[in-house]
């Protein structure tokens, strides 16, 4: 049964970076599914530079979901890869700051191009 349920968040490989594009509103169950899918995907590959979370499709991110994203990033770190967040919208950023979200030690980029460059320099 669980094999049929998918998070619906596309995970692609581009310039040896695993790119996950979020387009749906984040939810706890969805993130859990995504987390499983992403980690499975990562361990399949041998030669990747890192992971990029493309959040440009999200209009709003609440604190819980942001924490969950952070924990996914920490999990990825344990598999030995860095994660770059790209394309956060100004309104999302300002609401996260207003909610006092913990944003230290995150890599972020303004665009996918920039995110690839960051991962390139990290390796």
């Amino acid at each position: 049964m669980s094999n049929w349920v998918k998070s619906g968040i596309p995970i692609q490989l581009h310039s040896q970076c695993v790119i996950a594009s979020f387009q749906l509103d984040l939810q706890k169950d969805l993130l859990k599914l995504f987390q499983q899918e992403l980690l499975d995907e990562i361990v399949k590959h041998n030669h990747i530079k890192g992971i990029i979370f493309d959040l440009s499709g999200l209009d709003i991110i609440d604190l819980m979901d942001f924490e969950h994203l952070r924990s996914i990033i920490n999990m990825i770190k344990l598999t030995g890869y860095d994660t770059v967040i790209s394309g956060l919208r100004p309104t999302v950023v300002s609401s996260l700051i207003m909610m006092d979200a913990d944003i230290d030690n995150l890599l972020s980029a303004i665009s996918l191009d920039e995110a690839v460059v960051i991962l390139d320099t990290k390796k």
Partner: protein
Amino acid sequence: MEVISRTATQLCDLYEITKEDIEAVHEFKPVAIDKIPEMVDSWYSWLKTTAEFQEYFADPSTLHRVQKLQLSFWEEFFDANINDQYVSSRKSVGEVHARIGLSQEIYLAGVDHFLSLFIEILLAQDWDNAKINKTRRALNKIAHLDMTIIVQSYEHVVNQKITAQSKTLMAMSTPVTQLWDGLLLLPVVGLIDSRRAQDIMDNTLNHISQHHAQSFILDISGVAVVDTAVANHLIKITKATKLMGCECIISGLSPAVAQTIVELGIDVGTIRTTANLKAAIGIAFQKLNMKIVKQ
């Protein structure tokens, strides 16, 4: 800014204007209406002595038009047909006053002037005391009703003006400029309070996403006081830009500011700070893999 706008009937209730009051005014109307042109003249001869006269009524044609308007104003007043149309006509009077910048003082003095003239006429009638008192009371009520509507709409227009102005001021106070491709500069001048900090942040983030900026210089050499609150605002702004994927450099830290920050025990973390704009630009160009070369 919302105006509390009551309907005509609610206003009548507020001032306890009854049918009898309106009847009393109606009865007084034929007596008063003949004298109104005369009263308007006397009012304007008084107005001539004020400083405002030259400013607003120097043009004879304007004066003539305004006098005509005033006549119809008082006619409406004596018709005392207080419905929504009446209210909106009074509202527009207030709006016009506000738009041309005619002070409330002059308007209120005018109402008072006319009222006292009406009372004079009223006392000259050989009516009995009770009737005179009743009419007097009725005139007062309607005049006050007028004043309420006019003053309220005047205030509304003035408030709107102020809101528009403060918006412009806000836009002017955060002039984010593009120094180079991917490099933005925001010089901050004056005081930073939480409202302004929020404004700076919103504006900056929008510009960063518009220009795809990778570096952002916040020049605080024009900021008068940096205390714990201001420092925290600045730290928040840098964190926000970082989350957008844009490195923030704070430039223009004077020796005094550097001392206070350390003395207050503020942890600036990993924020890049420089003493002057030149050093900040140097760092930013380094990040952009660029170099300024002498020809």
